[in-house]
């Protein structure tokens, strides 16, 4: 009962980060760099929190969730660096 409550709370916090980080990309006034920052909030932090919630719920499947978390962090960081580099060069 307690673990399920903690897991749902973590999932909802991650969902809040997703929502907050995804809404600024509809705004045309922000620059691409600010959008990359908020996409980092939603895609790295929120998704890692959601995976943490799943890990609390099903701890026996930790290997695949761990691989998913590591690949998520690595790919998101590298691709946001590359996109920042491209837009910085065209500035």
């Amino acid at each position: 009962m307690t673990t399920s409550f903690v897991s749902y709370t973590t999932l909802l916090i991650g969902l809040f980060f997703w929502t907050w980080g995804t809404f600024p990309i509809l705004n045309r006034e922000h620059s691409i760099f600010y959008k990359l920052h908020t996409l980092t909030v939603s895609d790295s932090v929120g998704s890692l929190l959601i995976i943490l919630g799943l890990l609390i719920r099903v701890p026996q499947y930790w290997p695949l969730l761990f691989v998913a978390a590591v690949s998520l962090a690595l790919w998101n960081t590298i691709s946001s660096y590359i996109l920042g580099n491209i837009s910085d060069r065209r500035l």
Partner: protein
Amino acid sequence: MTETIKVDHLEGIQYIIIYLMLLVSLIPVIAISRSKETTERIAYASSFGNKLALIILVSGVFRGDWMIACIGAFILIVGDAGMLILSLLEMRI
């Protein structure tokens, strides 16, 4: 010989979480249709792919069906790697 797969029924809050995630993941589609630059489009598309893969992962874990969650993790890894290669190509041009 015949094995039946046990599938849990979803509770109310699980439906709410999955539909909220689906609604949030529709925002990048609108953003792609409104933007003109290629780099922004790549960023939004990779965000959309991320979100869909996590929806598959979460729904698979909620159903207690491990195969679906496994496919979600595969889509997460491979889709992000594909987006990375696309942005590398964009950097080269």
